[in-house]
């Protein structure tokens, strides 16, 4: 995951890139076989342990999802954590500090 966050005029902008294939289950591979669905279903972002965004994804969020959002109350050095869970039950969590 790549997380970038910066604060301007009291509003923190967070930009997140997540590595994930986001397979719809409708795509065929090179041999013509259907690739099983496999995608992120939930994303949670916290700022200093407080939830600032909860997202549910379907199959039609693009591969390697990008997400940008804005919240109040952040200041440089604060901790942001972004976590996701996918249809296989895999989880991933990464953090960054606000610049």
């Amino acid at each position, binding site marked *: 995951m790549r997380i970038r966050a910066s604060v301007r005029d009291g509003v923190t902008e967070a930009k997140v890139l997540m590595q994930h294939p986001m397979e719809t289950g409708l795509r065929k591979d090179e041999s013509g076989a259907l690739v099983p669905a496999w995608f992120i279903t939930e994303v949670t972002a916290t700022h200093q342990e407080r939830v600032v965004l909860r997202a549910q994804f379907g199959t039609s969020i693009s591969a390697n999802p*990008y997400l940008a959002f804005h919240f109040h109350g952040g200041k440089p050095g604060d901790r942001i954590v972004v976590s996701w869970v996918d249809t296989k039950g895999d989880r991933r969590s990464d953090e960054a500090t606000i610049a």
Partner: protein
Amino acid sequence: MDWKRRQVLYAGGGAGFLAELASLGLLRPAAAREQTPRAGFVAKTVADVLSASGLAGAADSAQVQLEAPEIAENGAVVPLKISSDLPRVDRIAILVEKNPVILSALFDLPEGTDPSIATRVKMAETCRIIAVVRSDGKAYLASKEVKVTVGGCGG
């Protein structure tokens, strides 16, 4: 998408398959279906997606802004920005009208988070993208048609 297609879709999907069964309501009493958190992702019409997502009756509003390109060079990645001037927005949804799964994403915004989101969606074909926000319990929307084109040598 019909049930048979979903079976194919999730064949071999393991935990994902069970999760979707649960979200479809098939592992729960029928009465609980409306409350399942992912009900919007299996609804088959825009109206059903909206009612399953607590956004029923969404009306066009100039106070919802949806920024999307007129033409997507590739339907696999269509960048979107959604924002709103409405107060106390606590939910945002993105719908792609002609995708096999209409609901693309659902965001819950706690107090202190601005109604301003950017992400990227897949589009199966040229159609309308609909952005819905909920403000003070009422739903509002903006929509835009995005043309999806065939690209490259195609080989």
